[in-house]
Structures are given as C-alpha cells and as structure tokens.
C-alpha cells in the first residue's frame, strides 16, 4: 500500500500570544510549512484543523481559518479529541490520502488558551473527567494524574525525585529550543520545592497552557517524493485507541491502556519494535505521564520508568531520547497544536535539522505519543526516513 509522507512543517513560538487571533496563529504555521517545503498553496487540496473548541470565543473554528488561509472553496474540517486533537487531525488527513480522496493535505493544530478568563479556566478544569460521577467531587486534571502517580509510587517505588528528573530533562532541552515557552534549565531541588498542585504533583510536574500553532503538510507517496525532493519523512505507522473516560472503569491506574494499544498498532503497521525507535516525543502533560509513557511504549519494562529517567536513558545518548524539544513541560501545551508540534519535531529530527544542541544522531525512526484527556484517547505515530 502506498505511503504517506510529510513534505512541509511549520511551527509558531509557543507562549502567551496576546498579539494574534487563533487564525493568525494558524496562518503563521501554515505559511512556515509552505516555505519549509517550498510549496505553492495551489497544491493544498484540503485542510484539517486540530483544536479544542471550548477554549475559543470563535465558534466553528475551521471555517474561519480556511477563509484566513485564503483556501476557500477547498474543504476543511475540525477534529476534537481533547489534547490529542492535533494527532486526530493528522490521522484523518492520513486516512483521506490513504483512501485516495486527497493527495496533499495541510494539517494545522492550533490553540489560543489565553483568551479565557481565569474563572473560565477553573470552570473548565473542573470538567475534565466524567462530569456525572467524578467532577462533582472537585476533581482536576492534575488530580487524576496525581492519583496515577501515587499508585505508581506505591506499586513500583517511583519517587518524587524521579518525577522531578523528567521536568529537569525537559527544561534542559527546552532551553535549547527557540520555539519553547520556557527556555531555561531547572534543578531537581527547585522542582521538588515548588508549590503543591495535587499531591504528589507540584507546579514543576505540570505543563503550562500556551498559545500556538503547528502545521504539517501530508502527501501521498508519489506526490511526496516529488514535492519532498529528498527531505520527505514517512508516516509509516498510525495507531489510535481509546480507554474509558472515567478512571472508575480503568483496569489499572499505573499506565494508559489506550497508549499500549495504539503503540502495538503503530509498531505493527510500521514493522518495527520499541527498540527500533531512535527518538520519541511523548505526551508529558505531567511528569508521571512521561514515566508511564516509557513503559506503555515499551522503552523500558513496567515499573521501570523512574529508573529510566534517573539513568538518563531518555536523554540524547541514552537508550531512547524522549522530548528533546522540551516536551509539553518546557515547550508549552497549546492543546490542539501539541500533536502536530510533535510531528514537526519528528520530521526535523529525521531530516537531521534539529540543530547541534538537540539533534539525535542517526535518527531514522521516530515516534510520537499524543494523549487526549487522562488517556481516553491515544495516538501513536511512527515516522521513518528512507
């Protein structure tokens, strides 16, 4: 079956973007992707927007973006699966190319999270779980991951230091990424001393909301080879799975079953195993999420995630470098943009264009792991460079 390649990537700075509307952010990423791929807008047949609508004042965002990109009357649609919306957009673009409906599709993940007042953010934060049985008790997004962390600590001896070491690593690489929200290093001591959010998680265990957009341009195999001119990167594995919305119906609370299932699908489709992955982007919305991701993706054994980071196995030079662009933790997490941002980084790494400070040597197979909510959705993509 014919492959799908990525022939252009674009990425805005992530951070507080009070200077721009969400469609203006989308445009920045789109224009950058055309420029990156040296592409003419005429080749774009459709766009798919990955975004979470409740953060925006603008309703029905895809239409506004399509107009601003000057792409009418070409089709567009929005995908929403919480923080994995960007990867869902990539999947539907990939599907449309696989189905032979489109040949070249621009995927734009975008989010402007600072449009909301603090009160609105707090109200949204109280509704991340199952609103019928859980939200009425005061659950929060960090609260759920904190409960995963506590259980992980209980079963496997994972420590607060392990969690902090994830933040230290991601800030280390964020400091070397000019697009990142936090471009500074931190120490384990500083992370451990930060204010509690939901015990055992502290401020430095949590990623930060941000505004931003990212764009990848996908093309069918023939078009990709022509347009890519040797720089194309292949999306050879695309896994997608779900888990219960409610933690009350999860089989266990030390990992995400959706991640394990999506990874198995992606590995099988790409014909690789975990050991083949040279660089990975994982969904570190909270530090414990990255530790669980190491295990769910098979980078280490179950329960060994804490030691994996402690032994620097997820640094460049370790067994599987992870989040060497800073991850959600240091780069920032504009929710709809995140999955697409991960894909951009993977293309950069596989092209060998990540820059001296954070290029993973000989990166020919890369993986992205993008989680929606508390694991209700997970998308795992495998990228290859010929």
């Amino acid at each position, binding site marked *: 079956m014919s492959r799908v390649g990525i022939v252009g990537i674009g990425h805005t700075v992530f951070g507080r973007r009070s200077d721009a509307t969400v469609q203006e952010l989308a445009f920045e990423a789109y224009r950058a992707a055309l420029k990156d791929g040296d592409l003419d807008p005429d080749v774009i047949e459709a766009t798919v927007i990955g975004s979470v609508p409740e953060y925006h004042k603008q309703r029905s965002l895809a239409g506004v973006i399509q107009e601003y990109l000057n792409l009418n009357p070409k089709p567009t649609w929005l995908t929403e699966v919480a923080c994995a919306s960007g990867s869902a957009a990539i999947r539907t673009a990939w599907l449309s190319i696989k189905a032979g409906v489109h040949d070249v599709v621009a995927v734009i993940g975008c989010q402007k999270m600072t449009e909301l007042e603090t009160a609105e953010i707090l109200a949204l*934060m109280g509704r991340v779980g199952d609103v019928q049985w859980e*939200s009425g008790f005061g659950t929060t997004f960090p609260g759920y991951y904190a409960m995963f962390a506590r259980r992980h600590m*209980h079963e496997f001896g994972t420590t607060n230091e392990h969690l902090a070491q994830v933040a230290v690593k991601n800030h280390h690489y964020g400091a070397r990424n000019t697009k990142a929200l936090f471009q500074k290093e931190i120490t384990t001591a500083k992370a451990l001393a930060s*204010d509690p959010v939901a015990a055992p998680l502290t401020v430095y265990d949590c990623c930060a909301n941000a505004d931003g957009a990212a764009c990848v341009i996908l093309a069918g195999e023939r078009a990709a080879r022509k347009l890519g001119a040797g720089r194309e990167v292949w999306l050879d594995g695309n896994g997608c799975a779900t888990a219960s919305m409610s933690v009350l*119906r999860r089989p266990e609370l030390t990992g995400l079953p959706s991640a394990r299932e999506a990874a198995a699908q992606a590995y099988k489709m790409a014909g690789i195993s975990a050991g083949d992955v040279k660089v990975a982007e994982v969904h570190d919305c909270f530090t414990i999420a990255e530790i669980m991701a190491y295990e769910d993706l098979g980078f280490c054994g179950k329960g060994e995630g804490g030691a994996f980071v402690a032994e620097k196995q997820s640094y460049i030079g370790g067994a599987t470098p992870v989040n060497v662009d800073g991850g959600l933790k240091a780069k920032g997490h504009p929710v709809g943009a995140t999955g697409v941002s991960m894909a951009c980084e993977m293309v950069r790494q596989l092209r060998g264009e990540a820059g001296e400070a954070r290029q993973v040597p000989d990166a020919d197979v890369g993986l992205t792991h993008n989680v929606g909510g508390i694991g209700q959705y997970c998308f795992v993509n495998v990228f290859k460079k010929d």
Partner: protein
Amino acid sequence: MFEWFGKVNFCPHTKVDGFAAHLRAGRLMGSTCTACGHLSFPPRADCPACLQGEFAFTEMSGRGTLMTFTTIDAAPAGFEKEAPFNLGVVDLEEGGRLLAGFGDTIAPDGITIDMPVQVVPRLCEESPDIKVHYTLEKPGTTWVKTGPESGEST
C-alpha cells in the same frame, strides 16, 4: 432528582435519576441488569455486557479498598474554599469503583493506599439546597437510612 448529586452538579438528567434519592435516604445503589444480572457501579441504565436497557437498583455495602488518592491544592470552580482537600478512588467489595472525598473519621495524614474504607452517604448540611454525596470513612462508621418517605423512589 439527579441534580441533588454532587457538591457541584453538571449533569442533572439521567436514566439512573433515582440514584440521588436513594443516596439521600442513606442507600448507595449500583445497578443490576434485569436481563443478564451484570452489576455496575456507578449505576448505568444500559447494560455494557448484554446491551439491554432494563435495570434495577441494587444496594451496595459501601465497603471497599483505597486504590489511590491525591490532595487537591489547585481547586476547580466551586471548590476554592475547600482546598486543600483529599480525593480517593475506591475498589468496591461487590465490584465497581467510586471516587470521593474523605470524611472526618479518617485523618488526612492517616490515608494510605490499600486501606479498607467505608463509603457513607452524606447530605451537604450547610447548603441551602439539597445536595447529596458520599465520603470515605473508617470501616465500621454507621449512618441513618430512612424509608421511602425521604425522597422519590425509582
């Protein structure tokens, strides 16, 4: 009146509406599928096992084991004044799981994973509106159950 359920309620209408009236009467209810006997907690009208839509409420013992817990410092809307507060996830003895806060019989520094707990139905006494919920308490904690006069039946 499912709007009674929760200190904050986002979901007033459901097919398992009677759950809240039972809870007000001091009874923690799961659901049993009348077709295949599958027990669910939280209760659900539509059986996940055989997909039938007929169910009966089944009283749960409320006895369970603490799976995990957290302390919420950064509170969501409606809970600002309560922070910091503890939340736990409990595996129920008869099956199913439940998330709740802790009551006065368990000291915050005495919470440990795998400890046995008793789920106790509660009224929010200080609220002008009827609000019902449940708290996690020390095993052996007792409470009053009332008859059908206390609310709507199923």
